[in-house]
Structure formats: structure tokens, C-alpha cells
């Protein structure tokens, strides 16, 4: 028995005139706001992209694997990528992102490696567990195949999604996400206006966010 716990709960109950067996009614219906109806898939993709671009993210539609390969080559050049770390999900494996990067001369660092080594990577590549067009947000879960550091430590974050990730609203996203031990909604690259209210990117999280929609893997 934790006396501090009992003390706090007793005070709370006394303040509310409740007892240990007092009922807990459901959240009042007034306190709910309805779901959003999604538009057509193309409209949703357009919305997702425009929201991300407004936040200084970079977006791209890729027709297939060949497109992905050439896009990766361009990214490696533009962002001067020497080291990369990746999620080890089935999707990324199927698309052979690690293989493509290796062929471009990029050293692949395991996300399980020492954090200092992971922090030296210029690029982190993840999939996307859910995408929310209305705010341009990407839900990334944490799991053994989805290490958190991949989307956090490198200066460039590349998130590859398919249409299957699109969700109409937060109700849908949360219904799926609530059982994850850790997840994050990523909306644009890291930013702050703490200095004279001037917007700057890449404070602690990634400075650049690339979001690519892969149509056919």
C-alpha cells in the first residue's frame, strides 16, 4: 500500500464526494465530434501532399520500383548521404531500399547499433503506418522492426508509404494506434519559432522530411 497514493486518491474522492466504488459513467456524447468523410483517393493524396509541402516537406509520387531507385539516387546526391539507417519492416525489404542504397555507395548502419553511430547517419528511411491527409501527418509506430531512432536522429527522414496507409481522420488513426506501446504523429520536419518568432527547421529532429508515395511495389 503506497501511502502517497492513498492520500491523493482520498483527497480527490473527498473533493468530488465520491467513494472507491463510485460509478464511472461513459464520456458524455456531447463531448464527441463526428468523423470526417474522405474524398476520392486522388483527392486525399493531393491533400496529404499539399499539407506536407506547406510545412516545408518534400513530396513525390513514384510509379514503381524503377522510379524508387532513381529517386533514391537523386536523394543520396542532393543530401550527400554517406550513411543510412532503416526500418526492417517487410515493406522496406520487399522494395529493397537497403540494397539500392548500398549499390549507391551508402553504408547501412543498423538502428540497433550504438546511438552515436546511428546519429552519424545522414538519412533515416521508414515506412508509414498511417497517413492523415487533413493535417499531412504520418503515424509511425515503434516496434523491433520500426526503431524510433530511424525517424529521429538522422538529419533527413525519408518516409515511404502506399495508398493502403491513407486514413480519413484521427478517429481511424487512433482506433488502430492505441495498442502501440509507442507511436508518433510526424507532421513536417522539426521546427521552432523560439528565436524572435522566426521559423527555423531541424532543431532536434530531422531537418528535411521526404514523403514518397509508392504506387506499385
Amino acid at each position, binding site marked *: 500500500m503506497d501511502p502517497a497514493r492513498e492520500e491523493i486518491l482520498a483527497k480527490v474522492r473527498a473533493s468530488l464526494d465520491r467513494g472507491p466504488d463510485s460509478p464511472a459513467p461513459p464520456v458524455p456524447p456531447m463531448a464527441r465530434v463526428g468523423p470526417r468523410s474522405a474524398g476520392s483517393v486522388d483527392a486525399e493524396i493531393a491533400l496529404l501532399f499539399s499539407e506536407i509541402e506547406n510545412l516545408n516537406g518534400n513530396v513525390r509520387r513514384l510509379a514503381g520500383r524503377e522510379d524508387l531507385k532513381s529517386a533514391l539516387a537523386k536523394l543520396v546526391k542532393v543530401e550527400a548521404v554517406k550513411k543510412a539507417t532503416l526500418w526492417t519492416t517487410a515493406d522496406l525489404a520487399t522494395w529493397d531500399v537497403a540494397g539500392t542504397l548500398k549499390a549507391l555507395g551508402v553504408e547501412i548502419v543498423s538502428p540497433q547499433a550504438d546511438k552515436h553511430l546511428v546519429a552519424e547517419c545522414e538519412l533515416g528511411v521508414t515506412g508509414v503506418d498511417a497517413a492523415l491527409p487533413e493535417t499531412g501527418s504520418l503515424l509511425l509506430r515503434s516496434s523491433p522492426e520500426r526503431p524510433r531512432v530511424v525517424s529521429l536522429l538522422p538529419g533527413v527522414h525519408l518516409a515511404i508509404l502506399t495508398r493502403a496507409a491513407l486514413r480519413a481522420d484521427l478517429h481511424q488513426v487512433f482506433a488502430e494506434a*492505441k495498442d502501440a506501446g509507442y507511436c508518433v504523429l510526424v507532421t513536417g520536419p522539426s521546427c521552432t519559432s523560439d528565436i524572435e518568432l522566426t521559423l527555423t527547421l531541424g532543431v532536434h529532429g530531422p531537418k528535411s522530411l521526404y514523403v514518397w508515395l509508392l504506387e506499385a511495389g
Partner: protein
Amino acid sequence: MSQTTAPIDFRANAQRIPPKMAASVQKATAKFLGNRAALVEALGNDLWQTLRQAGHDLRLHAITHLDHYLEQAERAVTAAGGHVHWAPDAAEANRIVLTIARRHGVKKVVKSKSMATEETGLNHAMEAEGIQVIETDLGEYIVQLLGVGPAHIVVPAFHLSKEEIADLFREKLGVVADAEAERLTQVARVKLREEFLTAGLGISGGNFLIAETGTVVTVTNEGNGRMCTTIPPVHVAIVGIDKVVPDWESLTVLLKLLARSATGQKITCYTSFISGPPRSPSETGPREFHLVLLDNGRSRILGSPETRETLLCIRCGACLNICPVFNTVGGYTYGYPISGPTGMLFASQILGMQAAGGLPFASTLCGACNDICPVKIPITDILLHLRHRVVEGDEQEGAVAPAILRAGAKAGSVALRTPWLYRLGSTMLKWLQAPLARDGWISTLPPPLNRWTMARPFPAFAPDFRGWWRSRGRGRQP
């Protein structure tokens, strides 16, 4: 009552603010208000008002069933392998965190922004034990280097120029950088990156605590929240018990309200949901997760029906931004980490009226805060009740106002409700001030009314209406 604190002297603090503070504050608040207004308009006022009401109702539901939700959250965190600690007051909260730090031999701590830990003075408590604490929110980092607290709950260092920040970095970090926002941000990124990677403990607050799954939600733009809760081997989250929400559904409302109200963003860059430590050993993240539930007077506020809606606050800062007093004096004047209207409510109730009894009066009751609060806290009604507590006392606290003021108020009210006394007083005042009046104005009055005339003249008394009414002809009265 909580820890004894030196009384907060709002007037003295207001007299000491640097000349350019008002302009800096207004520049910051104007920006946030403008961005907010654009987003509210885009959403449509009807939907916005529906969201506000929903936000109010679910937060009120949460705090009025707080025992149930706290127990639910505790069960969920424990089931997920986390540790839950209960801190009845600030000292206990600090002791709990220090114990965890000592057990792990922690020398360095990285912190993401937490008003709760400013309230408990955690940084000082840890530093007194030889542990280095580094604030990682850029604004908090800057004011920490400066040795002061935050000037605004959302943008702690808004009042500093980039030149001042460049000087600060040169002096305290030994880094020379151009006085340019991008460069200075980069300096902080590099410096703090090293701290994140070598800290033994990460401390966060919590914007919300979802009871359903015991999930701590942190809302940031910079990514420091993610860093503090991912990189160090131990994560401690300190969350006020008032932050509880029943379920994830609640956040579909609250997240729509929070960022729009705070900075005029639809949502912040990173919204993290942390439900205990990683579920599997091969998942990256802290090895240990601790949740510290902080009471420190919140359970007492809960017991005051007229003021308990104080606890609905989601710390967006919108009331600060719109408050004409805050825009005149800035955050430091309030003498408490949370400032502005919501700060007045918290400070005076957490610290008690002996220490903070002047704060409920630091408002003109203009009501702009009521209209902007995303969860519809009736701020001015609460302030009115708190004033009543100061001068008359209530179930929570006895009156602290000097007895002579009460006597004066009583005498004044007797005079005012006795019509002949009222009319006599009015006529006497007219005669008494006649020699002082020039052109219908009195330029100086004796104390305490000289507090009026130091700023502007006082109008001459001219209580002529009743005589005029009577002279019009009694026959005209029905």
C-alpha cells in the same frame, strides 16, 4: 497549503519590467493570434464552438471522475511494465525523481518542457545534488543559460533578440555564431545532440495522460520530446493529475483545439504517445519508464466547485496571448512559471492567497480570455470567486485581506444602500472637491486616490441629475 513562498508582488514586478518588454510580447502574441484566427476561420466558427464545448465537457468529465481515471491509468502503465509514483506535493515529486536518478548513478539529465517540473523546482533540487539538468526545448535552453524562468509557456525566450542570444551562446557555450536564427538554432542542435546522446535520464512532462491505455502524450515542434523519451536509458514523465483524459477519442477533439490555440498550427510537428517502456527487448528506447503523478494542490482545487474548472486548462497559452494585461507586462510579472489568466488561477490556488492573493486582482475582468479559451474555462467568474476568497474567505481558505479593508467595504456598502446617506455623501463630495476642480477636472487627489491621478485627472463631481429631475415637474412622474 503548499510550500511557503515569498508573496508575489505583482505591482512591484510590473514596475520593474524592461522598457521593450511590452513591444516584444505584443509582437509574439499578435503572430500567434493571427495564425490562430486564420485557422479558426478556415475550420468555421460553428465547428470551432462545437469543438470548444466538446473539449470543455470531456475535460470536466475527466476531472470530476478523476479517481477512476487515475486508477485506470495506473493499471495500464503497470501492465505495460512501467512504474507509477504518486507525489502529493512538490517536495515528494522531486524526491521521487532524485531517487530514480541516484539508483541509476545519473550525472546528466535532459528535459523536455514541463511546467509541472518548473512548479516543483525540480531542476534546482537535482542541481543541489550535483546532477546536471539540461533543458532541451530551445526557448527553455536559452532562458536556462540566462538563469531565468520562461517568459511565456509556449515561447519561453520570445523577448530576447537574436543578438542577445548570440552573445549568450558566446558567453556560456564558448561558441561564436552569427546573430541569425538559423545559425543559432544549428548551434543549439549540435550542442544538445551531444547531451541527448550522453544523458543518463530523460525527463518529460505530459500534455495529456490517456487513462484508457496509460499513455503519456507529448506535443512538441522541435523533437526534443521524442529525444528525451527515446534516447536516454531511463525515462521519467511528470504529469499533473489534472492532465487526465478518458480515452484516445478525447484527443480527436483536444488535438484539434491545442495547436490552433497555442501557435496557430493545425497540429505540432511531433505528437508522441508513450504507453510504458518498449514492449520487447529488441525495440529501441528506454529500459525503464516511470510516471510520476503530481498532486501539489490540484486535489484541493477540485474540491472548490466554483473554481475547479481551473483544472480544465490544456496549457495552450491563448489566454496569455489575448490578455491586455499580459500584453502590457509580460510573463515574469506574475512570479510563477505559468503566467497570464490561467497562471493567475493556478498560482493563487496552488500557492495559496497568503503568497499570491494579489494575483486574482491583476485583471480588469475584460473577459477576452473566456472567449478564446479552447475548453471554455469561465476564467473571470473564477477570478471573481478567488477575489471573494481573498477578502471574505471561503471553505478553502480564510480571508487574507487586512481587516481595515473589510471594515471600509462594510461601511461603504451601508452608506450606499441607505439612500439619504448616499445622496448626502454625493453632495458633500461635490462641495469638498469644488476647490480642487479646474475645467471639470481634478488633477491631484489625496492617497489612495492619488493612484488614479498619477496617471490621469479625475472628473469633477456633478451629481445634478436628481435636482434636474425634480425641477422638471413632479406632475410628470407616473
